């Protein structure tokens, strides 16, 4: 299976990344579309850096974008559902931190090379503080992968809160997985497992 297809499948399992215009030295984005466009630009930049930058280099390229453009506190709350309320504030903060790091690591690992891919925005639905932005990742051979971004405005700023690829919601996947682990093993075990996953991605490069 070629690199292009690898990306197509990888994207099913991937998640958050984004970037804030701040990283690019411009004013805060005025709308949610800018957030997603900027995210795509940074992803392409990381992909084009390829082996020159290495895993650490790609991490550095995307980390600000990911940490500032996704609403990780809200994402964490949604993913853990009822279990969120039962966590101590310390655990909540730690969970948000780990989720952020995992997302950065995931992008840095999977978006590791470039072979002519490009992102395009295909549709947009918005009202008040919510925006659903349909985009496509187009491979060099013309294959399209549907990526829908859900954004919410919070404190006058847009944040990505979920990514749906080809009908598969990343948050739903995480919720299904994490709920079971917390229920059976507790939050400490979940955090430990997430850290192991981050370490594994780092070692894979």
């Amino acid at each position, binding site marked *: 299976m070629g690199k292009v297809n690898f990306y197509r499948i990888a994207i099913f399992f991937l998640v958050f990344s984004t970037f804030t215009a701040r990283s690019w030295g411009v004013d805060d984005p005025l709308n949610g579309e800018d957030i997603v466009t900027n995210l795509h630009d940074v992803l392409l930049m990381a992909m084009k850096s390829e082996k020159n930058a290495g895993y650490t280099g790609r991490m550095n390229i995307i980390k600000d974008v990911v940490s500032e453009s996704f609403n990780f506190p809200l994402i964490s709350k949604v993913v853990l559902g009822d279990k969120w309320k039962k966590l101590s504030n310390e655990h909540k903060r730690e969970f948000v931190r780990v989720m952020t790091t995992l997302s950065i690591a995931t992008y840095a690992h999977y978006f590791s090379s470039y072979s002519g891919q490009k992102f395009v925005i295909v549709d947009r639905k918005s009202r008040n503080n*919510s925006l*659903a932005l349909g985009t496509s990742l187009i491979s060099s051979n013309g294959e399209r992968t549907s990526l829908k971004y859900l954004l919410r405005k919070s404190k006058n700023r847009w944040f990505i809160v*979920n990514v749906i690829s080809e009908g598969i919601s990343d948050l739903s996947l995480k919720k299904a997985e994490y709920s079971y682990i917390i229920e059976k093993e507790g939050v400490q075990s979940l955090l430990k*497992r997430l850290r192991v996953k981050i370490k594994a991605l780092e070692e894979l490069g």
Partner: protein
Amino acid sequence: MLKNRMQLKCLLSALCIALFTGCASTSKTANNDPHESMNRKIYAFNDTLDKKFIEPIAKKYVTVTPAVVRKGVTNFFDNASYLNTITNDILQGKPKAFFKDTGRFIVNSSLGIGGLFDPATSLGMPLREEDLGQTFGKWGAGEGAYLTLPFMGPSSYRDVSAPVMGIFTNPLTYLAAVVTVPAGVVSAINTRANLLDASRLRDQAALDPYAFVREAWRQQREYSLYDGNPPGDGFDDFIDGESDAAILRIY
């Protein structure tokens, strides 16, 4: 795109063996997975079998078979099983898809030399997939409880009979066993080989592979049921509602 969607689905729904269970009533749980305990055991069994035997064979197959040959093998088996899609086009009342899929089958069977090549895609007749589970869904059947089947992987009460129809509509089924059996083995190995990247990604990404596969399979299945365009796409819930739950599910 459809091809890869199929590959993901194949990863999740696994190799082809016919099995049929009745559509008993579903005792709902939060995950609509009342058989979770048993399902997890079967998942572990399937995974062990895969890791110990099937995956190593598939890897070996990839190393000794040129990509162009694997592509031809994939095309051939896709084409051989295409009458299943065509039949379900009829059952779902999709005349346009029926004619297009029939055209694809004829073109690839003739110009494509028995399906080894896929000229139909470049002629505007891309690969699609319909099966009996999707047909039941179109007819209004709910998914029913989630199931993990031995050797097969993810399924549900609604979808469990789909492979049976797949077998009966496949012309290879009616050939002599001396042909059918080796063909089935090659098809299974080739399918698994096509999923090596996907399963590696699953192994890297999932904390709880069982829950990951269950959720991904269900969502992908629902998406396929409506050919990527579900009627209520969830946008209104997300845009109008401020609830957290609306963030989780949208197409």
